[in-house]
């Protein structure tokens, strides 16, 4: 019966949407300022012109091209207007069904749009993030219904395993394998956690997903709960993401009211509840064992693994922990089948990946591409190249845990393996374009200061080592370094990487090591020679 209820809501909402000749979609992401005013102005104009029966104005999630925001999309016809201001409302409404407003028009065949492959971002910027009916009309919750009524948990585990999906939180651990471990682990209840702590500077993929398609994340989590036998779920989200939290709360409430969460979901025997936990903005709380301790109400400190959370996690029980984007991928893997999904990307890095493209680049924003796409295409085609005559120096991936790919290696395909080979990591999806005016020494000093400040302080090498490395790097910045300092720098990086307790310390030296590998000369240039030694003390 609850299934029929869903079908009914879907049919009624589709009928409602179809009444209108025009849909005007306005980006209401946190990154687009002033969109409330635009919504209001458009609404007022429609009322003034007595078009309320014809034109439907809706707020939607991020459409991706943040640098051209606020964006407005007119359907049908998919006309996209950029940098819209409230004053443009009259003109936009007047043009409906006539010639588009040329001055605001964004060409739909921009490489930014055509070269992307949207899978998890498919509905982002197309539906109202706070409307369950919208999500249902767009095909939402079909994966859950299919999972609950046409598949056994083991079928789902097999499906995820065959798809080759790897965790999108940074390390790229095979998702199917993790799920099977939790499903097999002894102990009850089992818990499920969605890691939405996203703390890397420059990354906003997860925030955007939470703000744009919160139901898709809940659906992915619910499918996972059914597959591994979890009865309670937590979304650990940073308190700095107020809009995401607000929308998640709303989504959870609507899902509960429509029997898509809670007791006996859709009449099946699945019981699954989800709660939100707020993180206070410590980077280390994104590390899974620290995150779990934080949910338990304790200080967010990592602990050595094993045991892994899959065996002993929250409250000592088997716990599945995945990233936001990992869960957001689940519905499409289920509905389209693992073979369809596995055809995207490369053999070992399958599917698509969302990146937050920032730095010195024309089209900053959120993009999704099939894995294996060369960096060059991302930077020059999708990103539109560098503005203001700047030349490309490097692309930084993985934030404070990653490294840089120099311009000469721009044909590197974006896969877990090829980035690792170059000493960087895929990370969670931060991608910073660095131009030739930037100093690599400055950039790595910045990242090291970040790691020093975000180190939890539990283990010696990370706590003291990052502080010592940072001090050494400032010597390079001030051009007061010696050859001995360079040697010491490399030795400390080796020490911190190999002896730290958790991923934060283990990966903190990555930016430095990567910069030393590709831009060693910049460090050598900061070393005091005898000559400038004399200049310093006349």
């Amino acid at each position, binding site marked *: 019966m609850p299934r029929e209820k869903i079908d009914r809501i879907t049919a009624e909402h589709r009928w409602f949407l179809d009444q209108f000749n025009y849909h005007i979609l306005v980006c209401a992401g946190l990154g687009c300022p002033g969109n409330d005013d635009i919504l209001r102005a458009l609404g007022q104009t429609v009322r003034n012109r007595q078009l309320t029966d014809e034109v439907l104005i809706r707020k939607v999630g991020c459409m991706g091209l943040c640098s051209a925001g606020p964006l407005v999309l007119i359907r049908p016809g998919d006309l996209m207007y950029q940098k819209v201001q409230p004053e443009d409302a009259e003109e936009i409404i007047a043009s409906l069904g006539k010639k588009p407003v040329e001055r605001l028009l964004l060409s739909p065949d921009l490489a930014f749009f055509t070269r992307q492959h949207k899978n998890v971002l498919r509905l982002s910027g197309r539906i109202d993030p706070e409307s369950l009916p919208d999500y249902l009309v767009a095909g939402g919750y079909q994966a859950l219904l299919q999972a609950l009524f046409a598949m056994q948990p083991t079928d789902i585990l097999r499906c995820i395993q065959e798809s080759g999906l790897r965790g999108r939180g940074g390390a790229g651990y095979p998702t199917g394998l993790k799920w099977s471990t939790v499903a097999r682990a002894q102990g009850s209840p089992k818990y499920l956690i969605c890691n939405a702590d996203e703390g890397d500077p420059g990354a906003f993929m997860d925030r955007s997903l939470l703000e744009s398609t919160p139901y898709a994340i809940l659906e992915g989590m619910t499918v996972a709960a059914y597959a591994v036998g979890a009865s309670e779920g937590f979304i650990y989200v940073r308190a700095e993401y107020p809009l995401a939290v607000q929308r998640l709360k709303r989504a959870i409430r609507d899902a509960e009211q429509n029997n898509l969460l809670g007791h006996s979901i859709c009449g099946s025997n699945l019981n699954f509840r989800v709660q939100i936990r707020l993180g206070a903005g*410590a980077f*280390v709380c994104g590390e899974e064992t620290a995150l779990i301790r934080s949910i338990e109400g304790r*200080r967010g400190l990592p*602990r*050595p693994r094993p045991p892994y959370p899959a065996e002993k996690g929250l409250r000592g029980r088997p716990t599945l922990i995945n990233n936001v984007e990992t869960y957001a991928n689940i519905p499409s893997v289920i509905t389209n089948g693992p073979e369809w999904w596995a055809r995207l990307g490369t053999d070992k890095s399958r599917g698509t990946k969302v990146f937050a493209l920032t730095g010195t680049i024309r089209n900053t924003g959120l993009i999704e591409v099939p894995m294996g796409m060369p960096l060059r295409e991302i930077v020059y085609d999708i990103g539109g190249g560098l503005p203001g005559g700047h030349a490309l120096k490097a692309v930084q991936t993985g934030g404070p845990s990653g490294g840089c790919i120099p311009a000469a290696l721009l044909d590197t395909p974006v896969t877990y393996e090829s980035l690792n080979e170059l000493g960087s990591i895929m990370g969670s999806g931060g991608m910073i374009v660095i131009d030739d005016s930037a100093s690599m020494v400055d950039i790595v000093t910045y990242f090291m200061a970040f790691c*020093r*400040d*975000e*180190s*939890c*302080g*539990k*283990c*010696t*090498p990370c*706590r*003291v*080592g*990052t*502080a*010592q490395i940072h*001090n050494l790097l400032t010597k390079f910045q001030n051009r007061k370094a010696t050859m001995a300092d360079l040697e*010491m720098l490399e*030795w*400390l990086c080796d*020490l911190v990487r*190999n*002896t*730290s*307790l958790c991923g934060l310390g283990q990966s903190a030296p990555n930016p430095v090591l990567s910069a030393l590998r590709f831009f060693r000369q910049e460090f050598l240039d900061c070393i005091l020679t005898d000559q400038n030694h004399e200049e310093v003390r006349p």
Partner: protein
Amino acid sequence: MTTPILTLTIDGKEVSGLAGETILQVARENGFFIPTLCWLDGLTSAGSCRLCMVEIKGSAALHPACITLIQEGMAVTTSSERLLRYRRAIIELLFSERNHVCAVCVVNGHCELQTLAQQLGIDHISFPGLYPDLPVDASHPRFVIDHNRCILCTRCVRVCGEIEGAHTWDVKNRGVRSQIVADFDTPWGDSTTCTGCGKCVHVCPTGALFEKGKSVAEMFKKPLGLPYLKAIRDLGV
């Protein structure tokens, strides 16, 4: 059910231990030296100082011996040149972190940090001192905490919480700014939880915690028999 006996090799020598024992336990039982600082028999292991790292054949990563359980057929190396270099550097990092002037310290001559430095052959500190400006809290009637000598091993935190059951100590801030605090960061003397048992003072490996009235090199730390206390606690006596 009997606990299975596992065999493994440590530095090439064949040894055996019970399933559930750590590498450190089995190594010590068999006379191998692995330095430790945060670990203390009778307290939960934190695995945080990273001194006890060992190599395990077939694994590229290093593993803390105090927390890693033995496995059948494991081949452990406790003292390669690489491990010794790392251990020396970790001790040197601890010395560089705060103000460890042994010559004027109450535990000079019987300090675990100093002893380890000697055992590992450290004769100078390669890293410049960070010397933060930290307080000495002498508000307690009988004890003093000198944060300048603290290595953040959290033994005091654990003994007070796990054995004495008072949970007076915890850590505030993070990274290099971490600091041990009493209650909600009050002077120790104002603590409403401290029972004055002195356990923290005696498990502290350095001169950070000491008894009042002790001058240079006069403070000796007594072994508390923690495993015994823990057993009594677990029995609920």
